């Protein structure tokens, strides 16, 4: 029974990692690739670590807190790293995909500049 649960967690994790890397090779611009990298790869690694934590807890009887700490750390820091990379890429004007239709940050920056000029 334990083996089945751990196997399900491992398969989910490896599948999500493969889906994330396919997304990174297939998406057309940096922002779409960040979307693939920060969501699916992070969830895949979290799922694999949950499976390994359960394996060592139930089969071996060892409570390894470092796995839980790793899960918490990855869960907290991967979105922050993705946000920083996206902000730096936008600030050095990396081009968006030519078929993308929405650019909220660019619209807001334009409005802010007009507001500053009128004052």
């Amino acid at each position, binding site marked *: 029974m334990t*083996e089945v649960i*751990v*196997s399900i967690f*491992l*398969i989910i*994790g*490896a*599948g999500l*990692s*493969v889906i*994330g*890397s*396919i997304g*990174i*090779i297939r998406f057309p611009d*940096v922002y779409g*690739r*960040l979307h693939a*990298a920060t969501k699916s*790869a*992070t969830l*895949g*690694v979290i799922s*694999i*670590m949950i*499976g*390994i934590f359960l*394996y*060592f807890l139930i089969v*071996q009887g*060892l409570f*390894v807190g*470092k*796995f839980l*700490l*790793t899960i918490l*750390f*990855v869960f907290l*820091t*991967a979105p*922050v*790293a*993705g946000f*920083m*990379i996206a*902000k*730096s*890429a936008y*600030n*050095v004007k*990396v081009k968006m995909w030519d078929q993308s239709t929405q650019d909220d940050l660019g619209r807001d920056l334009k409005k802010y500049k007009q507001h500053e000029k009128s004052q």
Partner: protein
Amino acid sequence: MLYTIANVCLVLMALSIAVLFIRVIIGPTLSDRVVALDTIGINLIGFIGIIMLIQNTIAYSEVILVIAILAFVGSIAFAKFIEGGVVIDRGDR
């Protein structure tokens, strides 16, 4: 049963890291390469975790934590470097 599935998952993670390495090589801009390298660091955590399950030891648990921390700090440093060429600034630029 569990070890067969763990070996299959190890092969899948290796394939995933190889595909990400293609993006590191061909990426048009520096931001693409940084995204792919960050994801390689995150995938390496799962890779070493599955190796721990196959070898039935918890000796590499510190290695996982150190790789997680180094991947995060490296990504932040690269993001700051892309933006202005300065890693640590005082916020007055």
